[in-house]
């Protein structure tokens, strides 16, 4: 090991340098950056708290959705056992939201958008519950009213939640279509103006037909939205649109399949949901 020398040739004493570099008195730069460090640490801590809350809310919302998929009828109150189970989770979510409010006030509401994924999953859960009960879409204002004041629900959160709702509606529709109460033998008149001849043909039960129509209406609504590409607004829009279109087509296919071939299928048969629909790939 040689001696480290300064550019003037004097030997440099090494032992004291790293010490002074980090001491309090090491000059204005150090104290300026110590201040920045504190500010940035505060920011990172807050960010991590919010991410954790968001993940917890997402997990609880997913459980709510799973429970709701056991419901078999629309436009009726949620069965008591499922409603009770979900209420516990909703209470937990409410607490999580309330606790995170101080981190999201004022200027921070738009700064920490990591809460967004939790909010979107929550919207998926409550909009699904709302749809099962009422066969209508929950509105943005209704979502906001369910959450503690201070939790901001952006239009993007709401829209993305609705996109995910179509996936749940698809699962629900396909299970419901194949669960045995499909309408191949139903005699209730679905449309009053049907002729006698048509009445003998198989048709879907009203609630199932409504589901298909609702999904189609939503698809049309989503597709009609025009979002300029230049600003990276709604970044997931394209991917979400494809998934949504796929879901709608799965339901349309399932409805067709049940209607035309329904009486031929073995009992307990359900349509295959594992692969995407291949409508045009024949």
């Amino acid at each position: 090991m040689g001696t480290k020398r300064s550019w003037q040739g004097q030997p440099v004493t090494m032992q004291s340098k790293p010490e002074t570099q980090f001491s309090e008195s090491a000059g204005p730069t150090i104290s300026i950056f110590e201040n920045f460090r504190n500010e940035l640490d505060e920011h990172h801590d807050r960010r991590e708290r919010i991410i954790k809350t968001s993940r917890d809310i997402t997990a609880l919302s997913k459980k709510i959705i799973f429970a709701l998929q056991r419901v078999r009828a629309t436009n009726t109150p949620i069965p008591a056992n499922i409603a009770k189970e979900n209420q516990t989770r909703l209470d937990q979510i409410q607490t999580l939201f309330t606790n995170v409010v101080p981190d999201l006030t004022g200027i921070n509401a738009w700064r920490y958008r990591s809460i967004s994924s939790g909010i979107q999953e929550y919207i998926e859960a409550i909009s699904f519950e709302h749809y099962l009960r009422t066969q209508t879409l929950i509105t943005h204002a209704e979502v906001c009213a369910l959450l503690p004041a201070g939790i901001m629900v952006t239009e993007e959160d709401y829209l993305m939640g609705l996109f995910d709702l179509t996936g749940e509606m698809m699962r629900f529709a396909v299970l419901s279509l194949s669960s045995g109460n499909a309408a191949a033998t139903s005699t209730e008149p679905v449309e009053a103006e049907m002729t006698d001849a048509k009445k003998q043909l198989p048709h879907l039960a009203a609630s199932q037909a409504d589901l298909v129509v609702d999904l189609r209406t939503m698809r049309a609504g989503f597709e009609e939205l025009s979002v300029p590409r230049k600003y990276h607004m709604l970044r997931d829009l394209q991917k979400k649109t494809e998934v949504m279109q796929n879901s709608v087509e799965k339901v349309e296919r399932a409805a067709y399949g049940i209607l035309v071939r329904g009486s031929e299928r073995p009992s307990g048969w359900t349509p295959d949901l594992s692969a995407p629909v291949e409508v045009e790939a024949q």
Partner: protein
Amino acid sequence: MIDQRIFEDLQTKIDEETTVRDELHDIVQTLARKGRSTQAILARAHSTPSDKLQPVLDDATASIIAQKDEVARLRSVADKHPFYKYNGVWSRELQNLVASIELCAWLGGLPEHKGTDSASFMTIEDVGKFLDVPINLKEQDAFYLTIEEYLLALIAMVEELVNISPPQRLSRAILSNFPQSRLAVNSVTLGDYERPLRIGNFIKDLFSGFQLLNLKNDILRKRSDGIKYSVKKVEDVVYDLSLRNLIPKGGATA
């Protein structure tokens, strides 16, 4: 039944946001155009000896003040909206401007705007005061210069001093063919053997500051990792000079 109005309302909101973005984007484009002028003026420092810099600094200051007017315009529009919703629209250009201000100040310009504390660069408070924008707001939702933007600007200024081109423009292989700091090298060519030392000391000082930060895996970390290469580049020049006894005695001491 699906209520169509839900989608109509969403479209209204999207249209409103687009209008805001259009307005902000227009101002930022003007800011960027004026920013390129400022940077072109400051680039003349490479071919100007230290003692003849004043005209360059005067031109740069005038150009920076023209940019400052755009910042005022930007602020007046941005203040009407949530800060972090649209911050991304102007953040990059604001950083470029702050980097130009820091470089201009380091070369000796804007002397009346540098605070009296002994920092070798304009502090975030100095910059905020000069640009007439708040800094580090915590509660109030209004236009301000963030710490991250300020720190990224300092890094950009260091890179300009040693002229490391951003990796997206030059690959590592090409970078390694740029062995030395550009301003340091060009100063030597101009007969100024002292400036490389000043650059070296300044960058090392900033580097010790950045080492204090607990950075997460974000843009600030990626960019600040580059400072150590800048330190090395300038040290290479200082080493070359000291080896040959070319550094004036009594100049800036290491």
